[in-house]
């Protein structure tokens, strides 16, 4: 038993946890923004997938990872636009539209992939990394945390920035009010529609970038349906985080660990079948949900479209 407690195993685990955790983190943060304003964004899985596809295409065509993220954001925003129009502006049922967007994106990206890449299955090149001096020499941790593509650092920074925005800016106040009592926000003269629209688009952008990272950095290629529930896990993270981005960070890392176990275990020499290990993240999610069921918090106006003057 080469083993679980070797350096190799731990490094592989932590390294993989970051790789798998970043998309979850982005999805979770995005969903958190939406849910704060009262929009239950089920379509986030579709936004991630759209971001994965467009992000891959952008990176593949241009050779630049950054352009890939931009493409990913664009893909996510495209899907988010539909959510914005139908749910925020027109007040249609958020769950039905969310399911439709997810299914549609799954189908569309798979379709496009078939016509563009299914014969060649191109891959992207090596991921450029930005090592942080000194810290990257730390054994195990250095390689996993401090020698990654710069987006990782940006996303972690985003967690703290978002926390600050939520608590110390007018935007944060508006977001919270939109989900708690939209009529109150409207009465102060701030548009509930604009607030919620911005939130949904922001979610799309973040989820899209997450999808792009998943495809370009995580896998190096696009495979239909590749998000495999990452967006929904983001929803779980947002539900349990009670409005605090730090919890999303923590939860994303936790689930990232469970996702990374497949490769890590192989490195450690343990021969547990892939399929069994692949069950683990979902088992983890369900266990966490069950244990922390009582602590989940959702804003009062969640899922209800706002119409001025309606009681």
């Amino acid at each position, binding site marked *: 038993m080469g083993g679980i407690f070797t350096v190799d195993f731990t490094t592989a685990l932590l390294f993989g946890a970051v790789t798998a955790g970043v998309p979850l983190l982005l999805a979770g943060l995005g969903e958190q923004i939406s849910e704060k304003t009262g929009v239950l964004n089920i379509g986030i899985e579709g936004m991630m997938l759209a971001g994965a596809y467009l992000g891959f295409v952008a990176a593949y065509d241009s050779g630049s990872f950054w352009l890939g993220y931009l493409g990913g954001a664009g893909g996510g925003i495209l899907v988010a636009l539909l959510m914005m129009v139908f749910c925020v502006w027109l007040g249609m049922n958020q769950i039905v539209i969310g399911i439709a967007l997810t299914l549609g994106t799954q189908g569309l990206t798979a379709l496009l992939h078939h016509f563009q890449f299914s014969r060649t299955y191109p891959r992207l090149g090596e991921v450029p990394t930005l090592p942080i001096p000194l810290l990257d020499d730390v054994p195990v941790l250095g390689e996993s945390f401090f020698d990654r593509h710069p987006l990782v650092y940006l996303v972690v920074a985003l967690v703290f920035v978002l926390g600050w925005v939520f608590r*110390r*800016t*007018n*935007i944060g*106040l*508006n977001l*919270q*009010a939109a989900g*708690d*009592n939209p*009529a*109150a*926000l*409207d*009465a*102060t*003269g*701030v*548009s509930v529609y604009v607030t919620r629209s911005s939130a949904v688009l922001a979610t799309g952008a973040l989820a899209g970038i997450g999808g792009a990272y998943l495809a370009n950095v995580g896998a190096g290629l696009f495979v239909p349906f590749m998000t495999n529930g990452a967006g929904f896990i983001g929803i779980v993270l947002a539900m349990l985080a009670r409005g605090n981005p730090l919890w999303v960070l923590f939860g994303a890392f936790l689930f990232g660990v469970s996702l990374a176990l497949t490769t890590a275990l192989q490195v450690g020499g343990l021969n547990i079948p892939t399929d069994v290990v692949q069950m683990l993240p979902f088992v983890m999610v369900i266990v966490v949900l069950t244990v922390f069921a009582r602590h989940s918090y959702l*804003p009062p106006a969640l899922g209800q479209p706002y119409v*001025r*003057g309606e009681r």
Partner: protein
Amino acid sequence: MPQVAQVDRNAVPAVAVEDIVKRFPGVLANDHVSLDFEKGEIHVLLGENGAGKSTLIGILAGMQQPDSGTVRVNGQVIRIGSPRESLQLGIGTVFQHVLLVRSLTVLENLMLGGPWWSRLGRHEALARLMTFSETLGVVIDPDAELGRLSLGQQQQVEIIRALWHGGRVLILDEPTSMLTPAGVRELGQVMRRLRDQGVAIIFITHKLKEAYEFGDRISILRLGRVVGDLPKARLASMSEGDVTNEVIRLMFGPTATVTGDARALVHEGQRRRRAVAVDRSGEPLFMVRDVSASARPGETVLSNVAFDVWPGEVFGIAGVDGNGQKELAEALAGQRPVASGRLVLGDDDLTTLGIGARRRLGMRYITDERLGEGTVGTHSVATNLLVKEIGLPPYWWRGMTRWKQVREHARDKIETFDIRTPSEQTPIARLSGGNIQKVLLAREASSEARVVVFNKPTYGLDLHNTRLARERILKSAASGIATIVISTELDELTELCDRIGVMSQGRLRGIVDNTEGAEMRLGVLMTGADAA
């Protein structure tokens, strides 16, 4: 008598509406309404529920647009297209339902609406809050979470928010419904201080007494039209009795006979339940013995509530909203588990029984939330009339629904209770509030009832339906039913009840006999306990 502050009569009114018409499907809410609102004056809009007051306010607050007519602010014709524009014009509105964000602090609520790109200006906001506190004579903790404050304090924050950006017009829509008598007095003081500084105050109410007490000027609305106006000069010289008679005359016409509705308006708070001697020689019919119940976040914990109700007695429960009345009603009906204590109805102990079992033994509960809880809006009137008896004969047989009998039953009730509905199949949400209440009353007033709990039975109803509901309550008591009425309106309780208990913070503070001076004793009980 209200003090008359000096006002320059030649000045342009702060706000004026001319010939406003507003229609909604099936009703003409505002029918060519014209009114002036002067600076430094408390102008009362008096009218029953449904008279069109709230619609007018909605227009001034920018929530909706009139179909025709003009609005002038400081003499200029303006179209108030949104709540933001209303605020920018200096008009601040305090609605009946708290329009604040419960999860934010007082200060954060006040800072809401600032430019989105900037950081929160805490210092400036604090300073401004201090100024307001002094002006209004109130003390509020800026960092308290709004949801934790008492309703009266929340209302004070609402008033501050309405005037936060330098508003010169303050609109208050039925502000006293959630206040203790002491709270109402405080509100009066605040209003007068603002008025003396030149703020134009528009005060909406359906209570004549309030109109007289607070108004420098009273305009009376009925069925969408302004039927009368008592300007300041005239009002100053009239007694309360004069005002009452004049209002009646303006609302119902100069006929000799006073209709039942008019009587209801007039005697609001002035009539006391004639002491129909309740026979207390036997055992009480319904006994609440030291009942306690737990609560989820946001609800009130019940502690050792105890009272008895004799057959034919009307027992009132007074108190400001949010002090456990709803929780008590739920505990009595079986919707909330009793943690300790006992509930006894005649010879039956209800304490551990479920809702259905209690109902079968004669417990009835008419909720205050007609659409939210009392009925299923998308289902028909017929279904709603039997929704508490699903599965029981004769309307169900071996689990199958006998729709024919269900519909017949509904038609029968519609006839008896004069429920206005296109048919028994109409989805109940389409009915007016008064008719939905009739359905609730019809549903619960069955022959086997022994104790009935009415929660805010006349809330939001017009005069006519208010009167009908109250008659039904008295009728139910007359047939020997132990009747419990929960209400935030002291006038209603003194009109209907034999004895009245006061709920405060989940406890029953005291029980008062409905005799001379009961209001005062009740006020003391409510205030003393409301030291939040």
